[in-house]
């Protein structure tokens, strides 16, 4: 993994490691980065997390390094959980990590890709596709 000093890029790469998905949307990553970066309650931990990640991103086992050097820190652990939830659910709720109202990106949630399904109302499919396994589509 290429070393970078760019916080948005660090966030994107960290997201791919903790979510286990290497095809996350860079555009969405920029939006999500902005949410954490602009939140006064979590910004310090968030930037500390990215700084810490920069020191381990060259590790041969990035997941293992994250577990040992980031998730053992309570503050960084909490931010990481919020990052994972945001990517998988498309939701970040108020009064958890971010202050103010919640943010919702439901139709972009990673869960739809993992479930090999689609958000309700946005199938993009044809009549009868549901009778087959997804890979037959």
């Amino acid at each position: 993994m290429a070393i970078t000093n760019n916080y948005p890029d660090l966030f994107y790469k960290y997201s791919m490691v903790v979510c286990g998905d290497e095809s996350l949307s860079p555009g969405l990553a920029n939006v999500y980065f902005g949410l954490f970066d602009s939140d006064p309650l979590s910004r310090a931990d968030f930037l500390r997390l990215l700084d810490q990640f920069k020191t381990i991103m060259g590790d041969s086992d990035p997941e293992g390094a994250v577990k040992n050097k980031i998730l053992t820190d309570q503050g960084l652990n909490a931010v990481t959980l919020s990052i994972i939830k945001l990517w998988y659910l498309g939701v970040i709720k108020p009064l958890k990590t971010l202050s103010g109202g919640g943010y919702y990106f439901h139709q972009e949630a990673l869960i739809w890709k993992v479930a090999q399904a689609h958000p309700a109302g946005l199938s993009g499919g044809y009549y009868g596709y549901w009778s087959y396994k997804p890979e037959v589509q």
Partner: protein
Amino acid sequence: MNTPFDIVIIGGGVAGSMLAYKVKKLAPELKILILEAGRDRSKERSEMALAFAASVVKSPISAYDKNADILLASPADVHDYYDPSSDIFKSTYLRTGGGTTWHWLGNTPRHLPNDFKLFSKYNIGVDWPIEYSDLEKYYSEAETEMGVSGNHEEWNNFIPGAFRSKEYPMPMIWPSYLETVIKKNIDGAEIEKAKITIRSTPQARNSQPYEGRPPCAGNSSCVPICPIGAKYDGMVHVRKAKALGVEIFYEAAVQKIETDLSDRLSTIHFFDWAHAEKTVSGSVVVLAANAIESSILLLFNRLAGGSGLVGKNLMDHPQGYGVGIFKEPLFTFRGPPTTSGIDVFRDGEFRKDSAAFRISIGNDGWSRFFRKDNPKKMDNLEFLIEEKFGDKDFVIGKKLKETIAQTITRIFRFSYSTEMLPHPDNQVQLGSILDPITKLPRPKLNFVIDREGDYNKKAFQMAGRVLTGLFQGLQVPEKDFEVQNDPAIFSGAGHIMGTLRMGKEPKTSVVSENLRSYDHSNLFILGSGVFPTACTANPTLTIAALALRLADHLQQLFKDRAI
């Protein structure tokens, strides 16, 4: 304004619009008006569908609740539309052109022959004043009008007496992959002395192009809205009625209804949304504003009160569920929310003692409830992520993704909807707060399941045993399934019934078998409010069949000058 119409219909949902269309087709000379309290939202379908797609909390009204015109035109929450002193009633409706068929699932099973004679057959509830054979041809007609996809061979005489005189207009909706696998693994099993058969559910959604509407594209959003109009809604017949010359006034909330010296309804006062009062009159008035709003109108105007039953016998289909994780992927969350069910518990001698119920197989996994081991009552998937993330080994990355994938693709759900007996204390009354649109009192609802006896409780227990048997038969380990069979935690089916009972005796019913008021000779009432009992079928097809039957009756009355 006081334009005389032959027929004034209050309510532009499936009942009112289908009635208007058929009468106008049979008797083009008749002047017919529909007064609809809501707006014409038909041009806003795309916006509403996108609003739903983007909403995190999916509910039957989540496509509608962010619109500027909300003003309780569509209840934003189950608590919003009724008086706060009400009991909890968990079903909502829409006040909009086309009515609540905008957010119905589209399931169109028929009532069963014994549903019409519950008292004579099982000594419970009451009989309907009509039988299955009286309604059968109208069921067929309704299936054609709405566009129902179904399997005629599977349903024709599936129990004695349940004959079908006509094929469905479209082939059945293809089953989901999930349901095909479940059927393969459980069909033929014996549970609670019954042979289990997974049967396709007839649905008013297109399996092929039908009358200019496209086939279903499996958007999984029938409730609250079909984004492409492949599922039938009442606007289909609003449009067809208008094309024949029926007039419709939107944003026309009826309030005061006057009677003449012979107790016939004369002048109807309604307000538009700018609160300007207008009046119309009709030789015949048909009240088709749903079981709650029709009751409010009658109670407010002290109409149809001879039997003392207006607003009484409110019913729903209280629901429970079971959810399990199958041994292999079923690929949930794709296609229509349900395409199959189990109908064997909809009738039998057990109904003497315990309510009948219908089981449907759900294609939306655990999204309707919380896992029993989810103490925080957060979204189940969020809980799963927290649970794994909080594991001592910190499950993240590819392992987390694999864990989620293995769970989410194997979840499936059974739901059951139970028959509810009528009880006069379950009722709609006038509340103390005014509805801002109609200026009528909000409904105060008294609603208790099993007010006497334990008819529904026994059904929940029996359904719980059946669902447990199904999960065991499907080899789902006990740790991987859970069944909710506590009637205190019921869900609403959105099936608002009773309150305006049809029957043969004026003392025990509000309208006759021809849906004519016993108190006012030119008043007719339509909708599931007239159902004497709830049975187990989703009510919309029967509402439509009764509307088509009333159309024949009204046309004959006008022809015979008997109005």
